[in-house]
């Protein structure tokens, strides 16, 4: 029986890294969004800082999704 521990370890490590990065960035985006919505409810004005934070994070997540599509579709490689 042959078990490729290196490949399994790589898959585990890369998956943990990518997932944690994506979830962290997305969660920060959600926090920005929450700040915008909270500000809007409290004083009717938006929160430019929150909006910038949300925008930046979601753009980063969109890039990750685009990379995912690139990996899935063989024509792109």
């Amino acid at each position, binding site marked *: 029986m042959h078990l490729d521990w290196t490949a399994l370890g790589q898959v585990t490590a890369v998956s943990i890294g990518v997932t944690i990065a994506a979830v962290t960035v997305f969660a920060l985006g959600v926090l920005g969004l929450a700040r915008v919505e909270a500000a809007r409810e409290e004083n009717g004005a938006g929160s430019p800082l929150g909006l910038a934070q949300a925008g930046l994070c979601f753009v980063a997540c969109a890039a990750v999704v685009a990379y995912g599509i690139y990996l899935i579709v*063989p024509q792109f490689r």
Partner: protein
Amino acid sequence: MDHITFLVAVVIVTALAFDFTNGFHDTANAMATSIATGALTPRTAVLVSGILNIVGAFLSTEVAKTISGGIVDDTLVTPGMIFAGLVGAILWNLLTWLVGLPSSSSHALFGGLIGAVWVGAGSHGVHFDKVVEKVLIPAVASPLVAGVVALLATYLAYRLTDRARKKSVTKGFRAGQIASASLVSLAHGTNDAQKTMGVITLTLISTGALGHDAGPPLWLIASAGLAIGLGTYLGGWRIIRTMGKGLTEIQSPQGFAAETASTSVILTSAHLGFALSTTQVASGSILGAGLGRRLAEVRWGVAGRMVIAWMVTLPAAALVGGVSASVVTNGGNVGAAVVALVGAALAAGIVLLSRRNPVDAKNVNDTHEVTIRNEPPSTVGTAA
């Protein structure tokens, strides 16, 4: 079309039927958590997933070069054995759907082929070391890796958004879930439709209907994509209920964490050369997401039954595949017709049984249990 014998025609139809069960069996992998958290309505979820499966089928041009990835000796495989193996895989897929348990469609296909080749060509036709490498190890590793990743991701998602407005957080993660679930669906289409196309293409090559090294003809790509897409759209609601509600009650941050974990584990395993099973990755992610939220209840009874189903998948499909293969080998075309009829009757029986307690788009989120018994609705009667 001189090369298309009766048996080859039967193989094509059966392979497409398997593709169809593959579709509705695996809808849950991508969409169960999105449906459970309300990120997508049940109907929209299966529609999106179905379309992405068809798109995936057309996008992937990397034809499966072997029927089984080396698990059985391809040179010994006859169309009759492929047919017998497919029957075993289909019946096992239907049975696990009836009891609402996610199990790997590829493992069912491998099991059916192993049984058929063992009976049809002898045990030397089965490469047992490959079985360990491609089925057993991934079956253990997939849920563990995905579970750990999803657990960490869930813990982090809750920790980071602890103090923010609950409403905004739920809404945000719901939107994110849609993206990650769609990626899982697309990856599924490129992988699983490909398997059926490979089986049919190799059957056609073996009978001389297609030249050596020929790719799948367009009608084949279209029909395989359509079969898996339709199956997905029909929705394996019984399995969706188990994965979205049965294992644990999923909230949107958990759903997002689980789907993101599944997506990254599936994509990294495909590109770093350690094959993992999609179904088992998705199930492991959901369990991990359940554990990652403090106080979240994980129903270990359901998880236990799921693990038993995983262990039984290969031998059970192999048994049906083997019995079918012996009938086909000894009975020729008549034998194949008999197996096809008996298989169709059993399939119809399973579908009828499911009608006693149907699960569909309307009631999928109502409860966490999938039962077969015909229980009277609890609202009927005077004791209100």
